[in-house]
């Protein structure tokens, strides 16, 4: 971590803080020395070691969520100058150049309950994976030979979906997904497609589609297409929603006839 230096050049960081979901939010401002190749995480690490605001007040260090710092675990997602993204891959100098401002503004994601400061609780996303039965129903771990073969094209399509790191950018940007509604959102819909595309995963396709045809399912998508624009892994989310939509139509027709 970083020790105090005599700064040559500095910039300001404004952070929206909150002691918990039911507590009022408030702002604090910190002055941070410019360093080469400095990302938002190193900025927050500096503030943790030097928790003094620009008005000279000694405060409790800012709380944030992080893990790999390589944009692959999804933990450090937050809103930087109004844009949801992973803070580890956000370089401070690039961000300042992009906005043309002398400060960077950090706020927590707004679609999930705040645990503390920039740390939010995204359990709903993991619960949704349970709802859509996001797994391949194998018989067990005994040696039963290889899995089904697939073409490189099929693998490439599935690989794109398998890189979803449950970060929540797509849900933060979605106008339909709110803190208090039931909409399941792009992340879980794309994962349902991922498992429906696997030869063995397909065995639960009908149950997944039952889940997605109910309240909070695919029909609640307003087609704003924000999700695909903010996905850090460029997952074709709107394409996934469209494909699941078509699977649902077929499923509805089949269910209609089988129930007669």
């Amino acid at each position, binding site marked *: 971590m970083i020790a105090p230096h005599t700064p040559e050049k500095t910039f300001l960081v404004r952070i929206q803080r909150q002691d918990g979901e039911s507590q009022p939010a408030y702002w604090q401002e910190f002055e941070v020395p410019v360093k080469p190749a*400095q*990302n938002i995480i*190193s900025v927050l690490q500096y503030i943790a070691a030097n928790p003094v605001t620009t008005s000279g007040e000694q405060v409790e260090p800012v*709380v944030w969520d992080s*893990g790999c710092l390589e944009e692959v*675990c*999804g933990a450090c997602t937050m809103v930087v100058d109004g844009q949801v993204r992973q803070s580890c891959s956000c370089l401070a100098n*690039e961000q300042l150049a992009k906005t043309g401002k002398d400060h960077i503004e950090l706020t927590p994601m707004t679609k999930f309950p705040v645990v503390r400061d920039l740390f939010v609780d995204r359990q709903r996303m993991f619960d949704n994976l349970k709802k859509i039965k996001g797994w391949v129903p194998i018989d067990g771990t005994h040696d039963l030979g290889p899995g089904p073969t697939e073409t490189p094209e099929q693998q490439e399509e599935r*690989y794109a979906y398998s890189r979803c790191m449950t970060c929540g950018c797509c849900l933060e940007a979605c106008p339909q997904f709110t803190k208090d509604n039931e909409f399941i959102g792009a992340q879980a819909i794309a994962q349902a497609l991922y498992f429906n595309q696997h030869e063995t995963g397909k065995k639960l396709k009908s149950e997944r589609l039952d889940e997605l045809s109910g309240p909070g399912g695919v029909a609640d998508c307003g087609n704003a297409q924000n999700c695909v624009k903010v996905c850090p892994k460029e997952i074709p989310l709107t394409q996934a929603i469209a494909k699941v939509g078509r699977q649902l139509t077929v499923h509805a027709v089949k269910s209609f006839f089988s129930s007669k």
Partner: protein
Amino acid sequence: MPETHPRVIVVGGGLAGLAASVRIAEAGTPVDLFSMVPVKRSHSVCAQGGINACNDVARQQGYSEWQHMDETLIGGDFLNHQPPVYEMAHFAPRIINLLDRMGVPFNRTSEGMRDLRLFGGSLFKRTHFAGASTGQQLLYALDEQTRRYEAEGKVTKHEQWEFLWPVTDDQGHCKGIIAQDMRSMEIKAFRADAVVMASGGNGLIYGKSTMSVICNGAAAARCYQAGADLGNPEMIQVHPTAIPGEDKCRLMSESARGEGGRVWVPRKKQDDRHPLDIPEEERNYFLEEKYPGYGNLVPRDIATREIFWVCQEGYGVGGENQVYLDITHLPQATKNKLAAILEIYEKFTGDDPREVPMKIFPAVHYTMGGLYTTYAPYDPDTDTITPASSPKREPNQGMAFGDPQNMMTNLPGLYAFGESNYAYHGATRLGANALLSCVFDGLFNGLSVANHAKAAGSGENGTPAAELPQALYDKFLKQEQDKLNKITASTGTQDPYTIHRELGVEMTAAATVVKEEGRMLQAREKLAELRERYADLKISDTGHYTNQNVSFARALGDMLIYADALLEASLARKESRGSHYRSDYPERMDDEFHNTSRVSFNTGSGRPDINWEAIPSPLIPLRPRTYGKTDTAK
């Protein structure tokens, strides 16, 4: 929580912890799974290159499970035990098949078979991969299977809970844990008849490493202080190719070299031309020159030292500590297979590695040492698994399947799996063997844990956890509550982040690529100073909710204790072996040091006691580790 017995606790939700949870739940024993992060965000997600296993293509070219074992043993410079490595190499193809059935999107050939890539320490393609994010894909597949058991009520997740201490009964049997909810800060005792530590590596001791911010080694260090020994803590892997950064060093996978990437420096010192303007004959591909057979794919410790030395001699790019890792010449299709890591380089440096050679330098990457564990070697006389019609193995060819002893620490009932287990990699881990060892521990040794828990839960080893007096758990609960209260109430002058930074700088300078007695003695003094300063902590967050400041400060104390063991074992091992290179003792010395450094925590002095334990070689004899080096000047 309803107490059904027996129960098993798994600490850590990376590959090893999830594989263990799945296997133990499948054996019919309920699992409580603890993790500091939602398990899907565990550090296994960072593994890039792939997972090794003998396969049909390699087999028809003369490769075998036996050779995979041999490569792992010589890669580890024979510090690993042979029976567990035999078992892992022979079990590996089953693991690939299972992961394949779980839906891991392994790369495919045009026929739809699983594709393979070349990796370090082998001349055969035996590495299975999913793009350049194999760890992520494997972790997710096991996360999905765990979620399935969770939905069925067989696994209970405790995410954002921190392991604090193992609970042991008066006979020293592990009977549960003390853990803390990192949000409400509540500390609680949990009962179990077996506990699996799958808590990963300790890169944070070095400040900056390729590891995630959660990999501080504190959980293993707490078990060590509670009486579980460490094995070979001096064995730390420094990965040859990482991108140095302000907050961490980001891994640039070995797969870049496996797919044809080349490491080079300009032949002229301080050559300031653009790398692409430097003609071929003015480039020094130093790994290829020194190791014509393995080239850029020598084991990591060797590549790391060569890069380190070439920079020490002043040949680093721009005179700095960096060399080129060049993939610009590779065809587009190959670059696509590496997309996940090339994107990382581009995002964090601003340069496109498809167009310009990457600038890289070694960084601390993997903890080969860890909690000391034991195993029951395979014995044909007690083997009840091999069908009557099949030939049995010879003695010591593998481990006794399901034997409760497998990967148990010296505390009965406490197991260590994955990176926190010292067993498989010896003095250097080969690329793409980490994912293998983690999944192997969970799947193969998970049954050993379930068997132990069933026996212990029915009273075979003292009182079952469910029937032990609450006073026992309360005693450990109070110990941890007191420790926390003391840290929270600290009113000293020493900021934990500053102590941590100094620890990282010191350990990186004294105990990484090249170790030497004088420098390490200096580090010993420094660690003593840091321990003293740690007693005078300043805590800036006094909140009682999601207090990261206090959690970090507590873990820092454990990091200092682990660092002490690591440094003392480095001092005591007066030889060079694998990743442990002593410039004052540059040769491997088998007579004295073909031994495990088994380190016990001395509760009186608070310092490590080192004992040397002989390593049997029942399967293959030791041999020099040269990798066909042509230049013996170094």
